[in-house]
């Protein structure tokens, strides 16, 4: 089976005009890998912005156009859903804060051309969570089917309630009260993030760019899976490209240091530099004057491999090992060991039961 080397792939992502050297066969693989990574429309936006689209093979233009049509329709849906959710919450005097993909789409502070987000993430205050959940339920949002254990996991251990789905439209909403699990002992001081919000012209609230970067970093480097890790890295790089200033970096540093995320921040900058090699990040790395130790170099190697799209035609040796290491790290960061053991044993028991006798009957 023909393959594309991951170095070549990331070189194109870092510098999209290199597509001009691609053969027909390379183009096929590139587009299929980008489809898996949800980045086809992103590439379309990049190539359109540098005026390269018209010189591409006709089939490639067709595929990129198709991806863009879908992305734009999805973004329209996201904007609508955020307005509806915001309007419902305001009836109970709650102002939700939209996060990640939804935020990038609804706010002019972020570049969202070609960005696809499959569900909506929003933050409310912990003491507003019950009221918010009830209000949603009264308006045809249903809690997704989770068993009692998973429900308890979400509410007791985690920083979110089980995902909710709009009954008619199928939109999925993840409602959080923090940006990381409280049980981990590493959840940030959420009031610091509530102090860094901005409201767009259409009345929707999001984090300010520096806070959004820190949130995206937490999501990328403290979770057990990085399926769309490359997209997350591109999101962060885009925030940096748009807002690169002393004031911006000062805000980032304040949030990082005030919440004990210095190690993650150092790893993030090294990772972005390794992937995209942009001047603005390279300068921050130099300013850090940080010599990565063995542990950091190991995790850098892991993430550099793990964030690549997982596709049989993208040649990425040892990616399996890297993703397994990230998986273990993510889980161990989310829970203290005792809780993790208890949680793992329940998950293993449920997986074995399902394999032997199928799904448990609903009670």
């Amino acid at each position: 089976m023909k393959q594309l080397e991951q170095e070549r792939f990331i070189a194109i992502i870092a510098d999209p005009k290199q597509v001009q050297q691609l053969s027909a066969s390379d183009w096929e693989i590139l587009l299929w890998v980008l489809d898996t990574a949800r980045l086809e429309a992103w590439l379309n936006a990049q190539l359109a912005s540098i005026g390269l689209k018209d010189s591409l093979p006709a089939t490639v233009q067709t595929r990129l156009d198709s991806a863009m049509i879908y992305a734009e329709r999805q973004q329209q849906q996201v904007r609508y859903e955020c307005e509806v959710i915001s309007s419902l919450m305001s009836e109970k005097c709650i102002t939700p804060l939209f996060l990640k993909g939804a935020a990038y789409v609804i706010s002019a502070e972020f570049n969202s051309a070609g960005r696809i987000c499959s569900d909506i993430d929003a933050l409310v205050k912990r003491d507003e969570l019950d009221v918010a959940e009830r209000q949603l339920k009264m308006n045809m949002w249903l809690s997704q089917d989770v068993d009692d254990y998973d429900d308890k996991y979400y509410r007791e251990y985690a920083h979110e309630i089980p995902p909710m789905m709009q009954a008619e439209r199928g939109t999925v909403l993840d409602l959080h009260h923090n940006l990381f699990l409280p049980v981990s002992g590493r959840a940030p001081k959420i009031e610091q993030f509530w102090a860094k919000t901005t409201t767009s012209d259409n009345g929707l609230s999001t984090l300010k760019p520096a806070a959004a970067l820190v949130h995206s970093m937490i999501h990328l480097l403290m979770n057990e899976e990085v399926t769309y890790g490359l997209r997350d890295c591109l999101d962060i790089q885009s925030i940096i490209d748009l807002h690169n200033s002393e004031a911006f970096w000062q805000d980032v540093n304040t949030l990082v240091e005030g919440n004990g995320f210095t190690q993650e921040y150092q790893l993030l900058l090294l990772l972005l530099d390794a992937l995209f090699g942009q001047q603005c990040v390279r300068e921050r790395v130099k300013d850090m004057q940080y010599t990565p130790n063995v542990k950091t170099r190991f995790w850098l190697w892991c993430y550099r491999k793990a964030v690549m799209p997982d596709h049989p035609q993208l040649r990425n040796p040892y990616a399996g090992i890297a993703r397994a290491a990230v998986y273990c790290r993510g889980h161990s960061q989310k829970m203290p060991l005792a809780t993790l053991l208890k949680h793992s044993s329940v998950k293993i028991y449920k997986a074995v039961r399902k394999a032997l006798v199928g799904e448990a009957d609903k009670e």
Partner: protein
Amino acid sequence: MSINYLNLGLLQSDCLTLPKAAAQSARLIYGDAPRQDISSFCVAVKPASLLRRFIKPIVEFESNFRIPFKPLPASQSYALLEWGLNWCLATGHFNHLLLHAAVLVKDGQAVLFPAMPGSGKSTLTAWLGLNGWSVYSDEMAVIDLHTGTVQPMYRPICLKNQSIDLVQKWSTDAVLTPVCHDTAKGSVAHLKAHNWQEFSTFSPARIVGVVFPKYDASATEPQLYAVDKLQTFESFYTNAFNYHVLGQASFDILTKVVNQIQGFEVHYASLDFMSDFLTDELLS
């Protein structure tokens, strides 16, 4: 010998792996088409698991290494491939408005037959295809969003149950894949409507009419009913695969097409009548 690509005219799909019998059917239907430079999709039909390769074998369809459907018995591999290609188009091609309808063309003018269960549409499509009409598609009308013309697709006609025997009776040279029995639609076989040489002469056609056929063996006289434009719009809208993704573009082109065409519901027992009716009433 395997088949590595499926050139559908409109676009091409790489074909990574197929069970032997399905590969033979695919070669029969697509083998004479040349290779396009770049494939838009990559598909495969493969055994669902090592165990199920040998015991009550089942197969699954993959598109870009993802599995969108439940597996089917291995005997239905080729049918699964065709249904899978429909899925790829419906969920991944947003450059045209795709309607669930057959498209028959004569003299550069196209008539659409929206998919209605029990209408005898596939039998009618096959008969017309064997009697001077060009089959632009059996199941998926591909409509240009700017001009409203319909594009041809290089796909077979999916025949079910008795229509398989009928086609074999009408034409001894009909190129048919082996029959898959016990599918969700009964017995299914695929008819190669045209060869690549014929197909390459097809160009985008103007839509002149929409017909809702109803085969009624007891109809001694054919019954004709005019279908108004609101009904026609509703029928296209409910039979569109990707209307909701295309948004206003699909609304605009559908309105333009509906305003330009005539609509009929025809209860018929005679295929000869249908051909004459289409030529006399719809083609100018």
